[in-house]
């Protein structure tokens, strides 16, 4: 971020110019706006602390009597900060963001990148769930059990994600990112199944 101040021309590498105190344009990088390195493992408490501190520091109300340019920057900075907070506080969206920054676009990948075994497994699980949903109300315990199984699967994925996050932070290996993307795909399928099990259970309890 080392550039020169738009206002007085002094060298700036911070949020405010050290010479004239003018607010500088915000970075668009979510890690940069928090002054954090690009890491997958984040201390949630620390992130929250920074979020509230920065929200106060950059709040548009504080700039209401400053020039148009600073008012604009404070609005922009606040918008980036809010997006950054929403994205980085959640491990899944944080990982997707890092994948995107590192050139893996998760939303544009083709189906070919999903391992066939995973598709088979998800298909079978969906079939079983559908059968249970079509059954009478006595299937509720089965649904609860299925949901528990899916939740256990999700917890396993989250555990593996944690390991891979730490591995990427230390070694910055692209293979780790590929593994993370695979885990995120798997997680997405599993959370879908959990949502469906919940929906089915809600219907069952409606009928009872």
């Amino acid at each position, binding site marked *: 971020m080392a550039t020169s101040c738009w206002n007085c021309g002094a060298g700036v590498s911070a949020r405010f110019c050290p010479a004239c105190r003018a607010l500088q344009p915000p970075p668009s990088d979510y890690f940069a706006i928090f002054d954090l390195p690009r890491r997958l493992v984040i201390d949630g408490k620390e992130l929250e602390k920074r979020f509230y501190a920065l929200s106060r520091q950059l709040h548009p109300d504080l700039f209401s009597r400053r020039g148009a340019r600073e008012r604009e920057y404070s609005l922009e900075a606040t918008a980036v900060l809010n997006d950054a907070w929403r994205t980085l506080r959640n491990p899944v969206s944080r990982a997707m963001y890092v994948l995107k920054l590192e050139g893996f676009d*998760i*939303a544009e*990948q*083709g*189906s*070919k*990148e*999903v391992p*066939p075994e*995973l*598709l*088979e497994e*998800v*298909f079978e699980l*969906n*079939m079983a769930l*559908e059968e249970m949903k079509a059954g009478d109300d006595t299937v509720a315990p089965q649904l609860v059990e299925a949901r528990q199984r899916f939740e256990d699967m999700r917890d396993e994925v989250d555990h593996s994600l944690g390991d891979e996050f730490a591995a990427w932070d230390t070694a910055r290996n692209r293979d780790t990112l590929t593994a993370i993307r695979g885990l*995120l*795909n798997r997680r*997405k*399928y599993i*959370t*879908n199944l959990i949502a469906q099990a919940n929906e089915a259970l809600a219907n069952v309890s409606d009928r009872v």
Partner: protein
Amino acid sequence: MAYSDKVLDHYNNPRNVGSLDKNSPSVGTGMVGAPECGDVMKLQIKVNDQSGVIEDAKFKTFGCGSAIASSSLATEWLKGKTVDEALAIKNTDIVNELSLPPVKIHCSVLAEDAIKAAISDYRTKQTKRVPAAQTVA
């Protein structure tokens, strides 16, 4: 976002839901998925070995209405076509027929991928049978 009447029709009355014997050499199975929305689509074709015409097609899709409609429509189109004709089906044909909005185009891509995967599976099975066929010829 509202679904078009055609999407609703396929969604409410899906054609050709079911499965074919995936171990049969005349059956090709395509299983594809879209991780970003969590969809899974299985599409199968049964090909007449003599004529190369697709005699039957079945699908089962777990996903949104557009994904279900796209695969339902695909099975309707596949029946009666030769394998080569089937390969010419483009996702844009599905988009046009179902009036899919831009955010649902990936559902049609999934259906095209499923067709291609099913055909490729069928062809793989056929080439494995070639030695036997050649001894006959």
